[in-house]
């Protein structure tokens, strides 16, 4: 599939600690607050059960990657988290959370007479943010004002993704939800976008939730991984979840770990 094989960087052993709940009381001063706590989350559309009994948490300033094959409910999970689909169970965001959401694709006609600036300024107006945030967001994502002044339908895939990211950043969110940030972007663009996301996370102290198929990038950037798909959902540190056996189980195909064996 042209996907880069999963490689383990030498620093694998020193990956960010697993965010499994620690026993209460111990190191309470050092404990990181959770940006998001999800318990027993289930979503069903009619009789079709899409998500079943998910429990996980996301510490502040960490990055959670959600992986799984197509149709495993990754986008539905995000939509449940923002309250766009009905669910059972509990979703608790830390008080004062502001969410920036970057959807996977927009059901938009390409010839709308709407410029990037129209779009970004609408967000400043709705979020009651100062207009200056538009320029700042564009700079953060590396999109030129000239591109933002064009109708959104004339932007390339990568530019449009950057516009969506800039849009999510207006209003100073504390959490970014990113649904397949690199869909429709070529490979160098993909690396660049991930580097941007990474930089933003560090500079702005953001908590990230991202859906991705790029397992090698997930391995590098995520502090924890939630996998959906065949079998039971799993949640843990990348080095734990992204083992060849687990991947094969999640995706229902041994192809990737076969790949991995040759490269690793």
């Amino acid at each position: 599939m042209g996907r880069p094989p999963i490689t383990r960087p030498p620093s694998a052993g020193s990956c960010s600690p697993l965010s499994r709940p620690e026993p209460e009381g111990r190191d309470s001063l050092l404990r990181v607050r959770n940006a998001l706590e999800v318990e027993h989350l289930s979503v069903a559309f009619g009789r079709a059960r899409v998500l079943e009994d998910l429990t996980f948490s996301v510490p502040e300033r960490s990055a959670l990657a959600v992986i799984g094959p197509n149709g495993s409910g990754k986008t539905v999970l995000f939509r449940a988290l923002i309250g766009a689909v009905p669910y059972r169970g509990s979703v608790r965001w830390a008080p004062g959370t502001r969410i920036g959401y970057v959807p996977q694709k927009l059901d938009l006609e390409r010839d709308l007479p709407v410029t990037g600036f129209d779009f970004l300024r609408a967000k400043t107006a709705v979020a009651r943010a100062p207009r200056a945030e538009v320029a700042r967001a564009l700079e953060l994502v590396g999109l030129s004002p000239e591109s933002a002044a064009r109708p959104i339908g004339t932007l390339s895939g990568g530019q449009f993704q950057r516009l969506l990211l800039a849009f999510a950043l207006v209003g100073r969110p504390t959490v970014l939800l990113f649904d397949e940030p690199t869909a429709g972007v070529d490979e160098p663009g993909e690396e660049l976008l991930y580097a941007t996301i990474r930089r933003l996370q560090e500079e702005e102290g953001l908590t990230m939730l991202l859906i991705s198929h790029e397992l090698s990038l997930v391995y590098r950037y995520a502090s924890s991984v939630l996998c959906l798909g065949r079998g039971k959902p799993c949640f843990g540190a990348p080095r734990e979840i992204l083992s060849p056996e687990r991947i094969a189980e999640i995706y229902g195909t041994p192809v990737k770990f076969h790949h991995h064996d040759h490269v690793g």
Partner: protein
Amino acid sequence: MITSASSLLLSVAMAAAAGLVGSFAVMRRMTLASDAISHVALPGIGLALAFRVHPLIGGAAALLLGTFAIWGLERRTRISTETLIGVVFSTALAAGSLLASGEELIDALLGSPGDLTGWEVALGLVGALAVIGFVLGARNRLLLALVSPDIARTAGIDVRRLDLLYLLAFALTVALGLRYLGVLLMGSLIIIPAATARYLARSLAGMFAVAVAAAVLATVAGTWTAAHYHRPSGPVIVAIAAGLFFLGVLARRDS
């Protein structure tokens, strides 16, 4: 004369409201729903005539019902909604045609030039200004909800409520224009100038400007022409709006 000046003002305000509401209607891909909403006014007008109430009251009441029906249906999947709209609202048109008859039916269907009372003008102006104020005031929220309801939700917008308010503004605009264009063609005054604007404009402000200008021009010129030649005003207004649309298509091809 004062009355004709205020009638002119009302038709301009109504057309401006139609251009603004239409800008979002064409971007939201609700062209079909908008025709359906305007058709639903007919049974209301028919009933009002039968019970000797002001036809616009009956029309407005039916529009209100139709709006809530569309709002409820929009939650369903796209295909079933369009089918339901097609069935339910054509039925409304048929039922309305059976209720009204003769000259009244033609006027209700196609609009008629005529004098308005002071009250009609005043109420009409209030309604048109309310629609214009709503669309301009809510344009940012409407734009976000249009681009992505999910994004709009994360920005704290109550999308369902906004949808309802928009549809009510739409229905109010239809009610305002019934006098001029009738139930068959009022939807066209909302859609055609906005379609022209979508074709020509490159920004949201540009779209509003073109849509309003085209709608006002078509309405004013159409009303005058229709009165002068003793024709129903709706077809003349829509013919002019359509002419502007095709001019726009040609103009853009040239550039």
